[in-house]
């Protein structure tokens, strides 16, 4: 017998769409919540199956007449009792259920029976054990699982939900949430799971706000150690970031140099080719690039200096290159962030981009992603030998915070193209991308639609909601309607890493959360309580009492 609990309702009939059915439930305990999982039992090919479905609508069909509600102090039940209706059965609901089907362990997916349940069939609430077994593709703690929380409609921890790490590292991930709804917290949980002994991922986090540094705690926590394994967390602070100038493409250069004229564009292109051609092993410095600019100047005089100082285009280009690259602490002639340092299994590398100009951030991300993708392609094709700094014989995952900065919807960014390339083709070479954004409306639609696993938290902006509806196919309308009402830490997960879209509560982080909001009133109060008395004390210690001289009429003469 596969039914363990009393029924909570009775099937009324088919719903509006072929995948919906309706059932009637008195539900006095309010157990049939939106998003709750219920099932009915039917025979499919001779086997008794539990056909699971998700509650997507709830409509009362038996209500007290409005006139019974005339006095807020008098409950309508007492009015009904006055007339002789003394039963507790005063409510009845018509519940709409979207059928998921029965779970096939062989296929690892739900199979829809494609026949609505019979009228009058009992409907049951799916028990925790059943949901734990069928909603997640992986069991908690299993290799390739990322336990990020538990089902929201059940008590916390009753139905743990584990994402399939293989799913989102292969076909990419999007974390979409408005500010303060817990997206960085969720990302922290995901990173904890990826670095746990059962996953040991090679992850890079682009952290424009410097809020992931607390992940370093993982290195010292017993929860993350197993045998001789211990995760490593490397943080590259803004002053440690280096992009070697010869890794910049012509597009990067054009992006970095502001207000280029047509002529400058042309000359820069020629100079870039010249520099690449004349460079040994493909390496060149800023000085060599500047030399190339001079060499490729129009009407160049073959004087001793080798360039025409009077050519305004050349002068302007050189000036711009100096300003953008020469004065930058990021772009360097020789130093670079080597890929084998950034990516190692069991290592989380955090690239902190705070205090860095937006355009430079975009170029850093673009060059990094391009190099990673190229390295993975070259490694897969056997072009790189073991020992080469770009040799990456394992898949990698890059998590980009504020992803709308790197692939904006209505603006050009140098990182957009490489991001799109990786999102569409990175799967083949084991480059996974995780995008975190608070403004999906500002994120390129193609980019969002390429992320096959979505974690969507509270979104109230209608433009952002529309973008999600357009770009995210796996989330049904019913779940999208939930988005504005989600609380902090509640997330809708859908797509390739779960068997069906689920609404869950994110688990507690093991490490500290680094992205907490500042408590401004508390800080102001602290200043009055601690800093101000200390300042006053210092002032009193440093200066003797001020003398004030007054004029005859009482005005201050000097103090």
């Amino acid at each position, binding site marked *: 017998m596969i039914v363990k609990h009393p029924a909570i309702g009775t099937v009324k009939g088919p719903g509006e769409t072929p995948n919906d059915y309706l059932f009637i439930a008195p539900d006095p305990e309010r157990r049939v919540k939106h998003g709750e999982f219920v099932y009915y039992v039917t025979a499919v090919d001779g086997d008794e199956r539990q056909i699971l479905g998700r509650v997507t609508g709830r409509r009362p069909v038996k209500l007290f*007449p409005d006139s*019974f509600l005339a006095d807020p102090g008098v409950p309508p039940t007492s009015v009904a009792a006055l*007339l*002789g*209706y003394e039963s507790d059965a005063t409510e009845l609901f018509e519940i709409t259920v979207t059928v998921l089907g029965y779970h096939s362990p062989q296929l690892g997916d739900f199979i829809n029976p494609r026949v609505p349940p019979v009228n009058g069939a009992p409907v049951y609430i799916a028990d925790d054990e059943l949901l734990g077994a069928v909603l997640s593709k992986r069991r908690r703690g299993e290799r390739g699982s990322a336990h990020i929380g538990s089902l929201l409609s059940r008590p916390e921890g009753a139905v743990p939900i584990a994402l399939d790490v293989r799913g989102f590292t292969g076909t990419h991930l999007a974390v979409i949430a408005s500010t303060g709804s817990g997206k960085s917290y969720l990302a922290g949980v995901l990173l904890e799971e990826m670095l746990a002994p059962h996953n040991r991922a090679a992850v890079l986090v682009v952290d424009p706000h410097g809020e992931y540094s607390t992940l370093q705690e993982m290195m010292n926590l017993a929860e993350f150690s197993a045998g001789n394994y211990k995760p490593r967390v490397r943080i590259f602070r803004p002053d440690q970031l280096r992009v070697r100038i010869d890794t910049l493409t012509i597009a990067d250069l054009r992006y970095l140099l502001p207000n280029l004229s047509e002529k400058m564009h042309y000359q820069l292109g020629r100079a870039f080719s010249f520099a690449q051609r004349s460079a040994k092993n493909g390496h060149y410095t800023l000085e060599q690039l500047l030399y190339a600019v001079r060499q490729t100047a129009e009407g160049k005089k073959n004087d001793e200096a080798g360039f025409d100082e009077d050519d305004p285009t050349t002068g302007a280009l050189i000036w711009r290159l100096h300003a953008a690259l020469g004065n930058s602490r990021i772009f360097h002639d020789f130093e670079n962030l080597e890929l084998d340092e950034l990516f190692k299994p069991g290592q989380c590398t955090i690239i902190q981009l705070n205090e860095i100009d937006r355009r430079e951030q975009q170029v850093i991300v673009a060059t990094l992603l391009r190099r990673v993708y190229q390295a993975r392609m070259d490694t897969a094709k056997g072009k790189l030998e073991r020992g080469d700094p770009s040799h990456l014989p394992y898949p990698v995952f890059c998590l980009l915070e504020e992803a709308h900065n790197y692939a904006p919807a209505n603006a050009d960014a140098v990182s957009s193209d490489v991001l799109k390339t990786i999102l569409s083709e990175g799967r083949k070479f084991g480059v996974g991308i995780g995008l975190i954004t608070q403004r999906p409306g500002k994120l390129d639609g193609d980019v969002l639609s390429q992320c096959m696993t979505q974690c969507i938290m509270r979104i109230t902006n209608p433009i952002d909601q529309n973008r999600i509806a357009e770009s995210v196919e796996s989330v049904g309308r019913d779940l999208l309607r939930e988005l504005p009402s989600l609380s902090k830490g509640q997330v809708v997960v859908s797509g390739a890493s779960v068997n069906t879209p689920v609404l869950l509560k994110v688990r507690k982080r093991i490490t500290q959360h680094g992205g907490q909001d500042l408590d401004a009133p508390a800080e102001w109060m602290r200043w009055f309580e601690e800093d101000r008395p200390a300042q006053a004390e210092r002032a009193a210690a440093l200066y003797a009492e001020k003398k004030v001289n007054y004029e005859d009429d009482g005005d201050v003469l000097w103090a």
Partner: protein
Amino acid sequence: MMQQPIGKIVKSNSHIDYVCQVFGVGETPQPPAPEDYSFGAFVAAELEANGGTGATLVGLIYNTLLMNPEFGALGPRLSPRSEVEIFSPDYLAETATLLGVISIGWFDAAGRAQQGVPALAATVNCPVRLLTQEEIITFHAGMDGQPQLRYAPQLLAQKHALVAPLLLSVIDRLSDLFPHSRSRLAVMRNNVAWKSIVQPAG
């Protein structure tokens, strides 16, 4: 023990709607008391009494009417009532209590209960008696021992103001007789009560 007759069929309004006249003084050794023909009481009309098939119609008292030819005669009486009893007892016999009885099934000659519209009709002067508690249980018990209320749709179709209270009283009575089936009877009761009590009051 079979119940004493409380009256006889005197008229019908339809195949299932009969009028029963309650026996008055002089018609039976022990005239029935008002509680014997209360609203919602189960009654039986013995068809065999008139040389019939031995079947028994089962009905429910759904209405009571009082016949009084004196009503409206507001003028002075030439004879006081005590004298009328002596000199014109026939005149007093013209007052009567009539019961509306709706037929809801029958017991066939073998004593098997059938609910619904009976095939046979009662005849005039057919005696009417109350059903015993055992007969009520037998009439309502299905093959599986669960109560049956197959005549409820037939009652609800009558569009009579007293049908809903009648059905409620039947269900309440059956809840006492079939305590193990209270939950399913409660669903029916709540449904009838909601539609007849709460909704009309709104």
